[in-house]
């Protein structure tokens, strides 16, 4: 099932790709990068510039993480488990 969040996470990168992340005190290894896209816009209100990564963590759950390029921070947005 899908769960939505908007929480900060710590992400480790390897050659530009996310290789692992730490969420709610637990560390997840990235097994596969499934997709990558960009969302940018809304300059008339908050402004938004995000780089999304859909990754499969070891164990089979799929996660959507995004890198907030304005604030230089990673967020966890969605989890399929």
């Amino acid at each position, binding site marked *: 099932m899908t769960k939505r969040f908007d929480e900060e996470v710590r992400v480790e990168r390897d050659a530009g790709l996310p290789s692992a992340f730490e969420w709610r005190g637990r560390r997840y290894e990235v097994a596969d990068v499934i*997709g990558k896209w*960009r969302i940018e816009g809304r300059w008339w209100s908050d402004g938004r510039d995000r780089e999304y990564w859909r990754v499969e963590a070891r164990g089979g759950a799929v996660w959507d993480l995004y890198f907030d390029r304005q604030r230089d921070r990673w967020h966890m947005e969605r989890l399929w488990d």
Partner: protein
Amino acid sequence: MASSFIHLDVRSCFSLKEGAFTPEQLVAQAAALGMPSVALTDRDGLYGAARFVSACEREGVRPILGASLTVRAPMRVGGDERVGGTRADAQVVLLANDDTGYANLCRLLTDAHLLGERGDPWVAMEQICAHAAGLTVLLGPRSHPGKLAIAGRVDAATALAAGYREAFGRDRCVVAVEHRVEARSYEEIRSMLRFGERLDATAVATNPVRYLLPEDAFVADALECMRRIVPIASSNVTRTNAEGWLKPPPQMRSLFAEQPDLCDRTIELAERCTFDIGLKRIHFPDFPTPSGRSADALLAERSWRGVHERDLRTDERLRERLHLELSMIRQMGYAAYFLTVADIVADIKTMGIFAACRGSAAGSLVCYLTGISDVDALRHDLAFERFMNPKRDELPDVDIDVESARREDVYDMILTRHGHERAACVAMIDTYRARSAVREVGKALGLPEVEVGVVAKAFPHISARSLRAGLEQLPELQGLNLPMRQLDLLFRVAERLDGFPRHIALHPCGIVLASHDLVERVPLERSANGHRMIQADKDDVELLGYLKLDILGVRMLSSMRHAIDEIARTTGEKIDLDRIALDDEPTFELIRASDTLGCFQIESPGQRELLQRLLPTRFEDLIVDISLFRPGPVKSDMIRPYIQRRSGLEAPTYAHPDLRPALQETFGVIVYHEQVIRTLAAMAGYDLTDADDVRRHLDDDAMLPQLRADFLERAISRGVDPVAAEQTWDDVAQFASFGFCKAHAAAFAVPTYRSSWLKTHYRAQFLSGILTHDPGMYPRRLLLDDARRAGVPILPLDIHRSEPEYVTEETTDGALGIRIGLQDVHGISAADIRSILAGRAEHAFRDMGDFLRRTTVSRPVAEALAHAGAFDELPGGRRGHLYEAITVEAPREGDQLTLADATPPRHAFPSYSDAEVVRAELDVFGLDATRHLVSFYEPLLRDLGVTRARDLRRKRQGEWVTVAGVKIASQTPAVRSGQRIIFVSLDDATGPIEVTVFPSVQHKTARTVFHAYAMAVWGQLRRSGREGLSIIAEDVWDLLALQEARRAGCLRESMEHPRQPMAPQSGRRLWHASPGSAG
């Protein structure tokens, strides 16, 4: 190849309100990124094609031309299925491979625009397939099949695309795959590739380019919302990221790293598009000639016929000149153009419409002989080379002035007579300026209209780029109630729109004359008033090598037509302006007295001053006068030596005796371009075409040293004294930029003389024409004053006597007066006027009820008419008529109500005061017809110690004066520094007063200057030049407020506190405040 990429889906700002860059910017960026080639595929048009190709030639990028066409699907497509779940419009990109393809593209775009509603171009897939030859179709994610494929229905997509596949074949039916870096991009790419395989079509990689850099994406959002007229908000913006930019090849390659062949196919496709639009290759018009005759032979024959019709002496000079012109025309291939233009001018005259040729074309004898121009080029010694010569890099074209009121009729005639494929109007690209950009962006951002209006109004005509500087410098913007962040957004977007096309309008005068293949090189569409119009502006027309004819609507010609009709109506005389003598002494007396208000070209204050110094005595003097009255000659005081020599106070001098023939007519002073050409030719032995070439480069600082050296060398080698040669060069170089084309001045001098002649002999009829068509620089109220001063009575608006126009009418004491027309009554429509004329033709209006019943006039307009006194001849008085206009029952025709029932009991109302009468006239038709407005302020002006306009001349430089008057004009020219100077012209019934308001006093004066209609100004007198006078304002007051203050006995106090904004009074409607008024 492996590292390159070529963009094939690119929309510039010529996809109106979509692309966020100009074609020039696109090409510059493509060149900077090292792209060998780039496409331009604007939405439903080729508006940007010519400038795109031109920029490509400059930058060394190979252009690919195409367009994105809107395709409308029938309701049901592919059996019972709707396309992609909707039947919304879709788009395909078409690229021109070759000439045939481009012709097909132009035809398709023409059909898209002409077959449907204006502003809603579309085609059906079947139309595209029928024009497939020479074109490549790109079926991308925004095409109907693409939408189906992305929706997972590859079978339906393939079935739908079968028509394209069959018409275009495997190589030219192409599936365009995009990687827009969106969440579903991978799925989309997989679907599109499957669709391509199933269709057995080539697949290529593309990117939808709508901005050049990712950081420009916001401009595209704003444009999108402005196009759809929706607020800028997430729900209205289509894009989700900033990937639609001109990505450099490595980035495109890395997006498609898994299938590099997709990018390879893109390049192969681009390389197959070899169409070359061939800029500057001239396309002459067709002229159907009788069997076996060439256009050249026909033109020669018609010219010789003209020699007899114009009654010219067939001497050697004429023979030589005609031979020269005809052979130049033959050499350049222009005969058909001349013949076409001559036919058009003849047709215009047959329609009973004045036509006059202006500009350098008047320098051609052939133009005179074929009736194109009415200026005898031989008599006035005009140079043909100034109009046409093979060395010019611009195409010669003819400008024809016609009566402004008949311009549409002329257009219709030309477009009908010269057919769909041979003639069309030229478009004009209306671009965003600061005002329009601020208004539209402000609206899209949801900012309050009033505040945005204040911001927009403050920037009359400056570029959006200087918005910020303006905000800091303009006092009336202080205290604006908009958050800085909002203003900042507003400006950020608005300044990016500067120069982008806003909409495509009809050019006010251009008609392209082409051959039958016009529609194969430029798409046609319809203008707002239904004229056929090409998707190209006048610069594009030049680039595309088409010849055009400019038809300008000139109000003066309509005014003169009206005057002549009035003369015929009132006196029975039929005036033929072509036949009036050019040496009429009373006319020159009027001109010398500078009684020339309303006369063509010689009515401005500066011109009237010049006339007084120049004192013209013959037609040729008017040519000189018009040529001298230009900023350059006036500023450098070329006028003085000319006048000195002409009046014999100074002897004419010539740097060299050879110059005498060229300069004799102007006593050795270079006035005309023609003289520059002949001077260069006489001294250095250039032929006239070369000399004109030199002349046209005299303002090019880079070329000047070389031109000079060449001139001196040639002159000296011909035995000219080096000192004389240098002096001649200096004269030429100095005057060339000021000089005026004599042919142009000679053409202008004709209506100048004719209008002066009419004013001299038929002042009332002439002024009624001027009042009707309003051709000049002065507001009508000043012309009325001119009539009054000359003893022409002004007759008031009258519901039974006023015509639509201003007409002449004999008064009871036998004078010829001018009756105010109905046309300027505020709010009145043409239908209203027709119904009034029809109603009174039946029988006179009995009263207001009768008037309202038998006309279409609405109550507010009837009120305005009564207010202005149009019913004064009926009993009841103005206030009574107003009361009736508001209260009376107005049953329609056929109602069973007797007139007596409809008429309310009459009340006794006080009548209007003199001041109320004039205020009413100003309210209703903007003229103080009864008395000069200033006359009401006389006591106030006395108290203020005002200096009148006629007395200013006696004041000293720097003296402090108070002046007052009615505002007749204000101007705020853009100044490069961003500083703004306001120029105001006042009229105090003794003449005009020029006031200059510098930025340093605008904080306390700008409001009054812009909003008051009559004002007093305190300031210092400044003289400029010999006769120029202006008042440098220190303080300004609203005259109306001072008047009130004077009545209240506090005039002095009110002038001591000028900084407080004065209550705006000018909008008050007097009758609402009057006792007994029903308002």
